[in-house]
């Protein structure tokens, strides 16, 4: 094994160890377990955005729509269909993913700024639906009146509703599944065509890759991941918020991805961690917490164009 591979493996082990023991080291440092859970969920969302932005090279500025659809899908399932946490997650993921698949067919014909604008426009459509359709979605107040359900594993029940640590590990398990699937796709021949499209669209086309179709598949997969993250987020809060579909939420996800490092697989998770922790800490000090997050974002973009993780990797090498 080469030195680079060894270093990669050690970094990977360190990341998973940190995530696995987060409830134990976060609390002494002044955090709390639910904060770690939020980092995982928003980190997964930022990684889903980055699946497109960092690895296919197209910027979606409306991905919160699929996140929010996932949240409503999970919430509505728990409230009206069946009190089952796994079913809620699957329903949320399907709702986000299928809507992404349908709209994706219209979106992937555009590039650059136009791609971003079209994604915003479609995203806002869902925001207004969630906002206006009060009888189903609860409108401006959001969807309430549901809660995540304990998971029956046969031998014992996992109480994810009241025990924050159990819930963290449940979310970590879901996170690992999704992130594993993402890594699997990126290492496949299909994943390599995504990177080819990011690197040089014209060359990709002239290698025989139907670029639009491949971007559509990447977009759809990303929306499935996004819907899954959104469904988890509804479980975190026992609540689905229409503002979770708003384009400003999409902007937050893009900010997390860029801040953490969009060319690296784990960068967006780091970006999400910085974002969530800063938000948690600063919002108890000042209502203008966003100005400080924004300031940090500007500094990172100016001085570490490859993001925080990109900077850390370079200083190590």
């Amino acid at each position, binding site marked *: 094994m080469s030195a680079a591979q060894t270093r990669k493996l050690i970094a990977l082990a360190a990341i998973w160890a940190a995530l696995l023991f987060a409830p134990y080291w976060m609390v002494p440092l002044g955090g709390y377990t639910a904060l770690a859970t939020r980092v995982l969920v928003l980190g997964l969302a930022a990684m889903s955005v980055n699946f497109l932005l960092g690895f296919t090279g197209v910027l979606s500025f409306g991905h919160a729509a699929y996140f929010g659809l996932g949240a409503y899908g999970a919430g509505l399932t728990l409230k009206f269909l069946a009190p089952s946490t796994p079913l809620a997650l699957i329903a949320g993921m399907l709702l986000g993913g299928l809507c992404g698949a349908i709209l994706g067919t219209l979106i992937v014909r555009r590039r650059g700024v136009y791609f971003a604008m079209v994604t915003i426009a479609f995203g806002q459509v869902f925001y207004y639906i969630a906002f206006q359709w009060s009888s189903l979605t609860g409108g401006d107040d959001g969807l309430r009146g549901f809660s995540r359900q304990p998971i029956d594993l046969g031998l014992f029940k996992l109480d994810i509703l009241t025990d924050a640590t159990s819930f963290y590990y449940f979310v970590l398990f879901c996170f690992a599944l999704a992130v594993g699937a993402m890594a699997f796709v990126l290492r496949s021949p299909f994943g390599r*065509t995504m990177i080819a499209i990011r690197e040089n669209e*014209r060359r990709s086309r002239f290698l025989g*890759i139907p670029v639009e179709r491949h971007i559509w598949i990447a977009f759809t997969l990303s929306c499935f991941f996004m819907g899954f993250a959104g469904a988890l987020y509804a479980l975190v809060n026992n609540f689905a918020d229409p503002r979770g579909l708003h384009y400003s939420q999409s902007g937050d996800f893009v900010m997390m991805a860029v801040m953490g490092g969009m060319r690296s697989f784990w960068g967006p998770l780091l970006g999400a961690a910085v974002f969530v922790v800063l938000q948690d800490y600063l919002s108890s000090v000042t209502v203008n917490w966003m100005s400080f997050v924004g300031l940090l974002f500007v500094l990172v973009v100016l001085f570490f164009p490859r993001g925080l993780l990109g900077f850390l990797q370079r200083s190590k090498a």
Partner: protein
Amino acid sequence: MNVLDINNVTKRFGNLVAVRDVSLSVAKGELCAIIGPNGAGKTTFFNLISGFFPPSSGAISFDGRDITRLATHERVTLGMARTFQITEIFPELTVFENVRIAAEVAGGYRLRPWINRLETGQIHGNVEATLKLVALETKADRLVGELAHGDQRAAEIAMALALKPHLLLLDEPTAGMGDQETFQITQLIRRLHRDSNYTIVLIEHDMRVVFHLADRICVLDQGRMLAQGTPQQIAANEAVQAAYLGNAA
């Protein structure tokens, strides 16, 4: 049977007629060079063949099949590969990774979420053989963006070759090269043509290269096919001399 049959193609951009009623047939194993002054429509003609845009009128067939309206990637799947005047590569990937993407697409694996050991072995074999052909095997792990210009051109040709094409389109393969690099690329194209029996159509400005390589030369001028023939016929053609030297001569 001809590999390529182009019948009376015309391409208009508004009022400009970039290519006017041009016909060309390329036989299997032939190396055909397209020359002409700047603005003669050579690259537009290439773009018509490779499907960058469709012709305003006329028809193109490839291996006996009408491809006039086919999309670029479909033509590539049928066995047509091209390089560009300004090198089109994946600069942040290694030479090996660049060629592997081409080999995987050519192997039909582009939509595959996984690839087994046997298939990986075949792909790697194809990539290594291709890199050897263009003499880049010792630079396989270098980032393409960091290579010298000549090596980048060779890497782009390697990507085209990894597709195992029936027809290779090379747009000014020696553009921007010094004498040494020009010589190496010319040797490479000669090997591909003579030893590996590739059918090649190329655009070239360097007349030494053209007369060294071509079986047949086509001269475009102001969008028209001015003359076609062997290098000797073209060298002796008065209309060609006039187009290149101006009518004052």
